[in-house]
């Protein structure tokens, strides 16, 4: 919040210091098209107005704000007045505006209605908009839960009725002065005539001042009757590519109301940039480019946040599009985006790197020595694809995804709620479904609508993680739609579209869950009570169940959860497939296309929305068989890129132009060490020799697993699985009983020496086992002493083994 405010000040300073000169587009740029925003103008009532902008797109993809260079003419100038690229109503009627630039022409239809009529000032439409624009109701100002300096507004304006009361009735006559409106405290605080902790917010006579004073002059009316609501907000232009620093682009915000009118709300919108290192935006809505990169420019008006995507390139950047093969649609979308950014992706990774990566990612395993040689010696050109297919058919692939689902569904024992037996049944319920490749939509529908005993129908354990209705609703939104709607429990989400109505309407689906004791004391029964409601915290009215971002369904005689399940896990809910695809993608790239995967919101846009859309479309067409999606991902060229970066992509962290290092997750790391030392583990409830990925219970762990960040499944947050390093991990690998003991217990080196295998061969085997590669000549050189040692041969080779398992290369998937 504060940052954006800071930006306003900064821009003011920058404008003072620099004379901003818009660099001319190089003569070599060839014009492709021009576009005007808005495409049609509606003017209604006397005070209405509409500004417009014109954007040129050149063949190179670069765009420019050409509003000031366009030849403009209005056909019938008796109907409308044109001043500073803004149209004002004069007389009712229809006409057109013609625009021309370098031979390209556009026509904008104009409609003027009620040109002489005055529209009454509105508290909700006008005054609340000024509060939002000026940040008065933000958390750091009067929106704080205790208000600021004795004056409290509802945060982000979620409760206009109370705000109205506060201003007009609280401390009566203090804030408003109806006799001399200009001397009302709410005016004087803001225009700088009396001290205000929040500083001067507007000047005498400016637009905001006039709105407030007009409302005071009118006697602070509270809107009579229905006030039209904002149905949609549009930010234009929707995107742009800026050539070099200090290029400007004016933005335009248009609001659509429920009564069919539109309104130019550019001056009432709150602007922000998600990357002020690349582009900043002023509160007048003017973007200025800075360093190379991408920026998402957002405008907030009423409860709507909308954004436009901008790419900022170095001035006159030389770029030749590389001729790259495309394995499938994923590469097509990734290359298209990289082209926009003028980034050349890395080269393909080596066969050794691919082998290790794909084993770890698909199966959670390291390749054996035989598997290594088999793949490396395979001369066929499609061997990578073949390997992906082989791995997808292994049971270890299923196990990885059972584990990931068990995290999302929080499979664990819960004191006094989920017994060990229930938990085991719940896990088996999940495992049989993933094993049998049940379509994910069917599985989720079964889960969400589940009823019955926690033994008999173990899916019901999902509702035994906690009995809080609101928390259950929040978890469902986060896991199956990728959205954190918690904010809307107390106020309308400031950076997203969710309002408190959406929140409580969604929570109402879970208000009728009944719980009772089963016959077996370890079993609970989940049933539909058929009664129980959720109330909105403002006004305490009962909420009708409403799908998040969609309609109010017909619930007649049905279990609310069953109705929700049919919508939630279906193509009717656009977020379901998108969220699943994103989760799958993130598993293979370490980052989602929307990142974090469970933080989907307007202000956290997808870096490649077209790709995400295509992935979700395909997943739906595959009948929610995510295995097919995994195949697409792993056979794409994008997945197979090297971690080695080039000059153009070294600063890219989001667009998948190179592979990134990912620390191997705890379970897979332990299983890897166990397998290559040829030892076995015993975990609670599992036979000796089981793998850590097979552990059913979130509460079953070992020191190793906990230290390396295994999820306890206490929350649904994707952040529970930690791959962050810490001091204990380093100490444990160096001195702990895993690496040291397993090397000793497995006796791999002693056995090999006894078999008469030469030290060099053992050395090579250790490298292939741990790092899936042969040692380099240099590495062989530095360790020549060890290999030629006459004494303590075994001990020295064991030290090599220790070093390999402690190496950075071993810890990371690369």
């Amino acid at each position, binding site marked *: *919040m*504060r*940052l954006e405010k*800071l930006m306003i000040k*900064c821009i003011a*300073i*920058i404008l003072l*210091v*620099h004379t901003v000169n818009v660099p001319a587009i190089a003569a070599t740029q060839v014009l492709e098209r021009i576009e005007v925003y808005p495409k049609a103008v509606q003017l209604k009532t006397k005070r209405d107005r509409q500004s417009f902008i014109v954007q040129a797109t050149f063949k190179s993809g670069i765009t420019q704000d050409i509003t000031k260079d366009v030849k403009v003419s209005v056909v019938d100038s008796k109907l409308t007045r044109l001043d500073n690229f803004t149209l004002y109503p004069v007389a009712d009627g229809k006409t057109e505006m013609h625009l021309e630039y370098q031979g390209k022409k556009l026509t904008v239809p104009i409609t003027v209605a009620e040109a002489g009529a005055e529209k009454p000032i509105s508290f909700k439409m006008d005054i609340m908009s000024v509060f939002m624009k000026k940040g008065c109701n933000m958390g750091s100002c009067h929106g704080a839960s205790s208000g600021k300096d004795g004056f409290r507004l509802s945060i982000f304006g979620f409760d206009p009725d109370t705000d109205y009361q506060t201003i007009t009735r609280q401390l009566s006559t203090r804030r408003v002065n109806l006799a001399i409106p200009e001397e009302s405290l709410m005016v004087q605080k803001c225009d700088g005539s009396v001290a205000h902790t929040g500083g001067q917010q507007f000047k005498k006579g400016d637009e905001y001042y006039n709105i407030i004073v007009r409302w005071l002059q009118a006697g602070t009316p509270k809107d009579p009757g229905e006030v039209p609501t904002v149905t949609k907000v549009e930010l234009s232009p929707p995107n742009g590519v800026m050539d070099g620093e200090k290029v400007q682009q004016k933005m335009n915000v248009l609001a659509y109301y429920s009564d069919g009118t539109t309104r130019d709300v550019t001056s009432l919108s709150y602007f922000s940039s998600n990357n002020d*290192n*690349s582009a900043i935006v002023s509160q007048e809505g003017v973007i200025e480019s800075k360093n190379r990169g*991408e920026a998402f420019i957002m405008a907030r008006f009423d409860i709507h946040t909308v954004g436009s995507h901008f790419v900022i390139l170095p001035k006159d950047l030389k770029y030749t599009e590389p001729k790259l093969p495309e394995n499938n649609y994923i590469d097509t979308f990734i290359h298209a985006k990289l082209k926009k*950014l003028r*980034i050349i992706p890395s080269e393909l990774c080596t066969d050794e790197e691919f082998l290790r990566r794909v084993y770890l990612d698909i199966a959670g395993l390291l390749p054996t020595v035989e598997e290594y040689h088999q793949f490396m010696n395979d001369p066929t050109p499609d061997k990578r694809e073949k390997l992906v297919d082989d791995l997808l058919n292994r049971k270890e692939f299923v196990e990885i995804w059972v584990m990931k689902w068990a995290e999302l569904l929080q499979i664990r024992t819960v004191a006094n709620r989920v017994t060990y037996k229930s938990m085991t049944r719940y896990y088996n319920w999940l495992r049989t479904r993933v094993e049998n490749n049940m379509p994910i939509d069917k599985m989720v529908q079964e889960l969400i609508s589940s009823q019955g005993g926690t033994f008999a129908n173990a899916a019901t354990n999902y509702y035994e993680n906690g009995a809080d209705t609101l928390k259950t609703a*929040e978890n469902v939104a986060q896991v199956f739609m990728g959205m954190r709607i*918690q*904010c809307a429990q107390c106020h309308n989400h400031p950076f997203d579209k969710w309002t408190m109505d959406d929140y409580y309407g969604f929570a109402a689906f879970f208000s009728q869950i009944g719980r009772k004791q089963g016959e077996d004391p370890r079993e609970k029964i989940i049933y539909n009570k058929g009664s129980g409601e959720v109330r909105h915290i403002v006004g305490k009215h009962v909420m009708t169940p409403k799908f998040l971002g969609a309609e109010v369904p017909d619930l007649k005689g049905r279990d609310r959860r069953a109705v929700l399940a049919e919508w939630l896990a279906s193509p009717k809910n656009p977020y379901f497939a998108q969220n699943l695809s994103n989760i799958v993608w993130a598993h293979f790239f370490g980052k989602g296309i929307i990142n974090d995967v469970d933080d989907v919101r307007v202000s956290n846009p997808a870096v490649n929305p077209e790709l995400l859309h295509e992935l979700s479309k395909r997943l739906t067409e595959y009948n929610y068989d995510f295995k097919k999606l995994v195949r697409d991902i792993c056979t794409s060229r994008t997945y197979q890129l090297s*971690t*080695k*970066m080039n000059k153009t992509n070294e*600063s*890219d962290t*989001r*667009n998948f132009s190179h592979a*990134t*290092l*990912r*620390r191997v997750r705890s379970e897979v790391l332990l299983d890897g060490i166990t397998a290559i030392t040829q030892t076995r583990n015993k975990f609670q409830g599992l036979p000796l020799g089981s793998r850590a990925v097979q552990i059913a219970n979130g509460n079953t762990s070992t*020191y190793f697993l906990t230290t390396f960040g295994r999820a306890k499944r*206490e929350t649904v947050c994707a952040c529970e699985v*930690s791959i*962050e*390093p*810490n*001091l*204990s*991990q*380093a*100490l444990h690998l*160096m*001195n*702990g*009983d895993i690496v*040291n003991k397993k090397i000793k217990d497995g006796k791999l080196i002693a056995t090999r020496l006894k078999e008469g295998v030469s030290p060099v061969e053992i050395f090579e085997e250790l490298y292939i086992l741990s790092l899936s590669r042969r040692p380099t000549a*240099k*590495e062989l050189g*530095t*360790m020549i002493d*060890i290999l030629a040692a006459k004494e303590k041969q075994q*001990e020295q080779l064991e*030290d*090599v083994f*220790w*070093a*390999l398992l402690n*190496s*950075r*290369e071993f810890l*990371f998937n*690369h």
Partner: protein
Amino acid sequence: MANRRSRRDFLQVGFAGGIGLSLADFFRIKEAQADLKDYKTVEGTAKSVIFIYLPGGMAHQETFDPKPYAPVEYRGPLNSIETSIPGVRFGELLKNTAKVADKIAICRSMTHGEAAHERGTHNMFTGYRPSPALLFPSMGSVITHEYEPRNNLPQYVCIPNQPNVFAGTGYLSSSFAPFSLGADPAQKGFKVRDLNLPNGVTNERSTRRRSILEAVNNHFVTKEKSDSLDAVDTFYKRAYSMISSQKAREAFDLEKEPAKLRDEYGRGTAGARMLLARRLCEAGARFVTLTYGGWDMHDNIAGSMKRQLPPFDQAFAALIRDLSQRGLLDSTLVCVASEFGRTAKINATAGRDHWPKVFSVILAGGGIKGGQVYGSSNSTASEPEEDALTVQDWASTIYHCIGINSDKELLAPGDRPIEIVKGGKVRKELLA
């Protein structure tokens, strides 16, 4: 490309670069600084903190705030005794602590509104009310963020393990996480995990391992670049410096303490943990968190207290005496806290239930004025009567002793500046 640089990074780049700053940049930096509330963190009166946490919600009536004149259903089944502060009484099971009462500050007016364990715990570890939008860092992690390590020891240590998620880094980076012992010092043959070379590995062999490790790493490190890789590197370096510093390792070795002193503390979990905490602070650790017992006494409070309180009493009194005799009490802040107190009236199962409205906490040493009772509860110990002590003020006072102005802002993700404690005031009356 879209890697978003935080404001802090920006400032560092700006200053480190030194050149190429335009006037606009200069103003911008000035503005950014002015915008983020920043105060210099100094060495305060408390060079280290021992944070003794009693999970479950310790009843104040049976411990530090008895009501001997209240009707029996309020007074409870236990009696009270005199302390070394005239007129101040403790529960009868605190007979050792009663003798050191003149060295500690007993705060009887602690108050907040969270009656659920996890929410109350969040309050007491972070100084913040839980928020659905943001996880706050624990005091220990904030201190790790603010200070450099001393004598090769981790700044923030948890005995035996990080007790709950709120004792972690919250929105701060994972490099500020506590170092957890991973073993209980009261156990026979207690050793901190992985601090010593494994059996059969001599120093010489360890050196050889290290050089092979460097050779293996060399190939990868020259080829790859990543923050996460650098962090692993840092932790391996720290691990090596800890392992190779005998002093640092010995700080974790309880065997180095004389048997007589160990007996004075008691050989159980309370004694061993508090003694180890003292050892670590003496050696250079800055914030040591330890837990003892389970205090959620819904049933039979008398029996549970008789089992759990005496070892605490013995250890805590020994800790205060020991610190005082070593001249370390003035530079070591000892806190005793729990997520809340318990209901005024004894319930149907002879226990007490959750009650956050008023309860007692202890502060001692490190700049706190000993021998005082701060604030009071009403006659039934159900409401604060005088000087209600809020979580924010309590936390701010602790930070103040350490040398941190808790109004300072740290950057949470999304460049959100967040005060270390929001709106906390230092309670000057508590200070020496």
